[in-house]
């Protein structure tokens, strides 16, 4: 090569590097800058993620709880007295000659009702009679209150109501030690809508200790808000003309589903609502701050619960907790099943309203998980709701006009009704699980009809068509990632129930296609899709027809799923461990921890059975489990919801998206059932093989008729 040629090559390489560097800077330069501007707030380097127990927080919450209980008792007593007076007046009107007696009666009645009302407080506090108007001596009862003045505190009251004015959080600072005065002033300032005793009685207190140390923020919180940690960083505005700083508390962005890029503007909006002028907010110094936040236990009385990012400390991954989690999740689904057997498709727990849409695949999957839960819990209400759901499903099934005896399910509304393979697969799964839950209960015509349809959808190479052209109008060439796995798992399960090798043969051909041909071409394996259902099918197929190639592929699927999760607790924020990466601008999807939880636990079961001594996949499943448990609504993390009773047991979409989808609950239940099988010898066998002797007479009759 000549010298000039070498120089030209070097110069062009340098030019490329410069162009790439400039391109990267223009593309994500400000984001990188903001990322570098993040980091620990000075002075908080050793601050634990979850705040340590704090007796001062306990004391503040105890006083606040007492004040709230007294307020509720007072309102109830006042209402009772008013009602008694009205009743007495009515009585006096109806019998005017006995006016003296009516007066005596009203006075006595009011006193007695007031006493009953006062005693009927959420935590049963004795706050009636004179005690209701004579607060306890906080200073002697709670000597820790003497330390309140050592730090700035903010106390917040959340009320369970959809009314935006009443809901709160209603906030007061605690600038000095007189907590009761501050709390009473907060209660006195509540809008009338908040003073309904039932609403007020369900109130939950939270207290934030504002930590020292500030981190100046780039303009508007940095590009896309990347300089802010959603739910962990609060925003402080200070301005010489505004007096006290404005604090946008850290948990608010998580509670209010505020996306990171909007946290800054939300803080500005909140400051203006708090009386800050536009010019002051525009000119304010803006910095990030953090707090130690605690929420009271439901009904108060117990020690304050440490919280972070609008969530409580994760529950332990123990068998009783997993069982309870499944039970309350199933209860949620029971509550959300209407009389026709239709589920609430999407419940927006933050707004307390249903979102639109419906999907028959998710419907069938949800019923399937309910039968699984019934096998564990044994609650007939779960079975009844799931059976209603299957009736709903059955009414939407259609028999193939060209192929009698083959049934499929139509999904979608209007002119876009489509026969999706996944609908048949999940329906078949549900019917099989129904029979396992209660032998003799399933619809065998539907069950075997779906299986025949799935068999018909298989191609010569073992793959499945994803959409059936049932009406001659289906034009899509779409190949679903998940439908084939759903269908394959359903056939494996049908074999477990009936012992009919025909279904297992179809499933095995499909499994071999996944391993050898799917996404393989011209000497390349393009990728291994995160086929959660397919992995479950491979695991259960491996029980009856073990095959090392399929085993290896199944564990590769498990690995490909785990690869995109935050599995290292050493470097990951504790509340995100087990979360699924879903883009740089977003908190991990908790929903995927449910759906992939089913897959990871299948991988874990396969590893436990086929690779004794190895634990990698079992650890993945355990880590994923923690994310599942943290994102189920329980009394520990529902304080900010308008209707916590309804959301109880539901799994949310994300740590800062409180929508509950029936499919998300389904995936979580099934995933929890999967991990339970590894931890609890008494848990129902997920891939239960029903012996000939155990088969119900109706099932046997249906099988014989089908021969």
């Amino acid at each position: 090569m000549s010298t000039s040629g070498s120089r030209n090559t070097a110069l062009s390489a340098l030019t490329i590097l410069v162009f790439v560097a400039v391109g990267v800077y223009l593309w994500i330069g400000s984001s990188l800058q903001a990322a570098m501007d993040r980091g620990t707030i000075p002075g908080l380097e050793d601050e634990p993620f979850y705040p340590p127990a704090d007796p001062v927080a306990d004391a503040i919450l105890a006083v606040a709880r007492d004040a709230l209980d007294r307020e509720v008792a007072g309102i109830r007593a006042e209402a009772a007295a008013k009602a008694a007076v009205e009743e007495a007046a009515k009585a006096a009107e109806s019998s005017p000659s006995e006016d003296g007696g009516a007066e005596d009666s009203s006075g006595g009645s009011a006193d007695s009702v007031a006493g009953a009302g006062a005693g009927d407080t959420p935590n049963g506090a004795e706050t009636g009679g004179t005690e209701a108007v004579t607060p306890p001596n906080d200073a002697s009862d709670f000597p820790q209150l003497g330390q309140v003045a050592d730090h700035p505190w903010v106390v917040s009251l959340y009320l369970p109501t959809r009314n935006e004015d009443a809901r709160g959080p209603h906030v007061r600072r605690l600038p000095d030690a007189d907590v009761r005065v501050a709390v009473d002033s907060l209660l006195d300032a509540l809008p009338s809508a908040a003073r309904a005793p039932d609403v007020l009685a369900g109130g939950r207190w939270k207290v934030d200790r504002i930590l020292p140390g500030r981190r100046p923020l780039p303009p508007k919180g940095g590009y896309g808000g990347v300089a802010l940690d959603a739910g962990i960083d609060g925003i402080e505005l200070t301005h010489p003309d505004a007096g006290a700083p404005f604090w946008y508390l850290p948990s608010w962005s998580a509670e209010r589903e505020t996306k990171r890029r909007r946290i800054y503007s939300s803080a500005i909006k909140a400051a203006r609502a708090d009386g800050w002028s536009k010019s002051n907010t525009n000119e304010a110094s803006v910095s990030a701050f953090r707090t130690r936040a605690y929420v009271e236990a439901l009904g108060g009385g117990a020690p304050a619960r440490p919280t972070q990012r609008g969530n409580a400390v994760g529950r332990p991954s123990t068998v009783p907790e997993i069982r309870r989690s499944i039970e309350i999740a199933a209860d949620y689904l029971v509550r959300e099943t209407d009389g026709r057997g239709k589920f609430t498709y999407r419940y927006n727990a933050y707004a307390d309203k249903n979102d639109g849409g419906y999907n028959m695949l998710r419907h069938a999957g949800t019923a399937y998980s309910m039968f699984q839960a019934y096998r564990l819990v044994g609650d007939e209400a779960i079975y009844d709701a799931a059976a209603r759901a299957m009736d709903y499903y059955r009414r939407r099934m259609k028999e193939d006009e060209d192929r009698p005896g083959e049934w499929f399910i139509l999904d979608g509304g209007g002119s876009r009704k489509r026969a999706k393979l996944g609908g048949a697969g999940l329906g078949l799964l549900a019917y099989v699980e129904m029979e396992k839950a209660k032998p003799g209960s399933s619809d065998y015509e539907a069950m075997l009809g779906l299986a025949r349809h799935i068999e018909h959808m298989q191609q010569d190479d073992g793959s499945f068509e994803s959409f059936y052209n049932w009406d001659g109008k289906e034009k899509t060439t779409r190949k679903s990632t998940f439908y084939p796995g759903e269908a394959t798992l359903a056939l494996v399960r049908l074999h477990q129930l009936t012992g009919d090798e025909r279904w297992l043969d179809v499933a095995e051909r499909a499994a071999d296609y996944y391993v050898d041909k799917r996404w393989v071409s011209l000497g390349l394996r393009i990728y291994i899709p995160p086929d959660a259902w397919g992995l479950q099918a491979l695991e259960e197929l491996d029980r009856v027809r073990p095959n090392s190639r399929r085993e290896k592929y199944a564990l590769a699927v498990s690995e490909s799923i785990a690869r995109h999760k935050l599995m290292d607790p050493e470097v990951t924020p504790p509340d995100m461990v087990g979360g699924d990466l879903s883009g740089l601008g977003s908190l991990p999807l908790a929903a995927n921890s449910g759906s992939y939880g089913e897959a990871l636990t299948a991988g874990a079961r396969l590893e436990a059975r086929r690779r004794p001594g190895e634990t990698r996949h079992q650890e993945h499943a355990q880590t994923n489990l923690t994310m599942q448990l943290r994102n189920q609504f329980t009394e520990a993390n529902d304080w900010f919801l308008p209707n916590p009773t309804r959301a109880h047991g539901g799994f949310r979409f994300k740590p800062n998206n409180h929508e509950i989808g029936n499919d998300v609950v389904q995936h979580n239940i099934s995933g929890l059932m999967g991990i339970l099988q590894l931890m609890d010898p008494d848990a129902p066998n997920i891939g239960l093989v029903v012996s000939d002797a155990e088969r119900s007479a109706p099932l046997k009759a249906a099988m014989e008729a089908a021969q």
Partner: protein
Amino acid sequence: MKGIVFAVLTALFASVPPWLMATEPKKSDPDEVVTAAFAALVVTLIGVALGWRRPAEDKAVVLPGLAGAAASVTALVSIGLAVGAERQNYWDAFHFAALFWCGALCGVAAVASFVKSRGTSGIASNLLSPAAAVVAAYVVLWSWMTFSFVQDIEGAVLRWTWLLTHG
């Protein structure tokens, strides 16, 4: 003259896949995309092969290489656009694999062409590094598809960048 003809043909074919993908990513027929990519590859290979026997300073050598480099880049861009538009749900493995091999081989042909003529052509010596970089990108993509440890690295990078902006 032949070099110009092959270069123009290659450029035409090479422009089809990204044009289809960019204009109608959700409607483009993957068979058309792949056919264009194959056509670009064939023309590039013929052009570079014919030019290989000619003197280095002949434009017939460098121009097909130039067009091949363009085809290599457009195939890579098309793969990116297809993934971005979630064509995995509609395309077969064959479509992705064909785009990959067409792009990679066009890139290799371009590098070969530039190596031959870099001493006499300023264009060739200037574009040798970029063409090699594109081929290197194909090698990285191939290693990602082939080796799980490369996928592990990809996962680690994703986690690291997430933690950088969230941790």
